[in-house]
């Protein structure tokens, strides 16, 4: 590590780092530090923060409940079209969130292919509801759980499972007592990343679930709306998200970079 790096590399690296750091520095410098507590404890911000926690945690739960079994199938299953399924599952990660929102409307909106049926049969409407915000956040965050959990399952030596089976453990028991504990670190990492993604979700939420204080207006939507009238307030709210994201990245630094 003591070899000198080429100067051009250092320059490019510094530009790269500055480019990423500048917006954060900008937020910190322009933040209304004098009234930040007052802003963040105000009724509007508190409602948005509470709702954001609720929605992002529920979305994480849904992502884990459906994502982990899916990851297991992708890691251990032998079936045609597995590559297609995997690509589909990862799609929300690269799709523009607003496109995700439009897609969700076509599927689960009041006139969507499944949504119209949901409303007619069960009287359930997802658009403009907190449940809809959870659906939107789950859609964009489930790939992170699947990716991380699948990597975990794949890195696990199948001989552990075979050994458990030889010793008489049923598949469900093996999964619960052998496999899941061994991949717990990857599951936690996936869940935390999914949570962070859900917390920052904007485009799919406003497109699919709408924007109403106390019901669907999470912190990113509140930032957007506050920006219309009060830039300092929007910056204060933004900083909360920046801070939470940094906490997540610091907590997961080993998993993400592979170094300490």
């Amino acid at each position, binding site marked *: 590590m003591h070899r000198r790096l*080429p100067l*051009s590399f250092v*320059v*490019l690296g510094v*530009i790269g780092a500055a*480019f990423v750091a500048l917006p954060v520095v900008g937020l910190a410098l322009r933040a209304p530090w004098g009234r930040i507590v007052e802003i963040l404890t105000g009724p509007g911000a508190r409602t948005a923060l509470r709702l954001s926690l609720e929605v992002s945690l529920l979305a994480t739960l849904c992502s884990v409940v459906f994502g982990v079994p899916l990851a297991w199938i992708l890691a251990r299953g032998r079936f045609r079209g597995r590559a297609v399924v995997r690509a589909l599952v990862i799609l929300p990660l690269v799709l523009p969130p607003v496109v995700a929102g439009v897609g969700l*409307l076509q599927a689960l*909106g*009041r*006139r969507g292919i499944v949504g119209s049926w949901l409303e007619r049969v069960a009287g359930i409407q997802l*658009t*403009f509801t907190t449940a809809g915000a959870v659906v939107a956040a789950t859609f964009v965050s489930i790939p992170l759980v699947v990716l991380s959990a699948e990597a975990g399952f794949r890195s696990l030596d199948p001989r552990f499972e075979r050994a458990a089976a030889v010793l008489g453990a049923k598949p469900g028991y093996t999964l619960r007592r052998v496999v899941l504990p061994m991949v717990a670190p990857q599951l936690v990492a996936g869940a935390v990343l999914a949570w962070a993604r859900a917390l920052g979700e904007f485009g799919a939420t*406003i497109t699919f*679930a*709408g*924007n*109403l*204080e106390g*019901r*669907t*207006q999470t912190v990113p939507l509140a930032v*957007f*709306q506050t*920006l*219309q*009238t009060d*830039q300092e307030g929007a910056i204060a709210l933004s900083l909360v998200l920046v801070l939470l994201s940094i906490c997540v990245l610091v907590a997961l630094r080993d998993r993400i970079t592979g170094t300490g």
Partner: protein
Amino acid sequence: MKPKALVAVLLATLVLAACSPSSSTSASTNGSAASTELTVFAASSLTSAFNEIGSDFEGANPGATVTFNYGSSTDLATQIASEGTADVFASASGTAMDTAGKDPGVEDRADFATNQLVIVTPTDDPACISSLEDLGTPGVQLVLGAEGVPVGDYARQMLEQDGLTKQVMPNVVSNEPDDASVVAKVKSGEADAGIVYTSDIASNADVRGVTIPTKQNVIATYPVAVVAGSSNADVASSFVAYVTGSHGEATLKRYGFGPPSG
């Protein structure tokens, strides 16, 4: 590519990215040295009308190229102060123009159009809406522009003046970022009704409009002005004159705008 060249390219990209407005529609690019490029910041409700006025203006003024940046008037006013690239500002509200008037300042300010509010419903009108009062029927799912977005502020102002706030506001299910999003939510049938400008639905057959009587309605007045410090002040002035002139008025009328009052 040599590292130095790469650095230069990257720097150029950074600078360009920093300068480019969020959503610009370039009428034409790569103007020759003799041409003048005019950057017009305009309220998103003006999109269709101004695209046409822009190309008409270019036709009447060879060498001039008009580039539009459409968005919420409030956002645009903020961008004008921070970016300093706008030559002309056409706002959907006097308040946003006042903001730009304070920083960086405006010249030749004139009202050039008016717009009224209208109720929109899906074509099959599932909630049976035929008046403003109907919006207060329990269970109606109404979408408005968000507070601070002119179309949302005007709608709230109208409901307040008609004494319908208490009845209608509980039915609001979403506060949308702009008028186009309100129309989209209604068009898709997610919402039962929305309140937008008449100009938003003038060329839109996919939604049903319910006229709001003049005595219940509010009139939105659109001001246009040359932004102080414009490097093309002359062309900017003639664009403003073109918009406020008879040709501009005729085009605006076709897109559902009324003449400026008074």
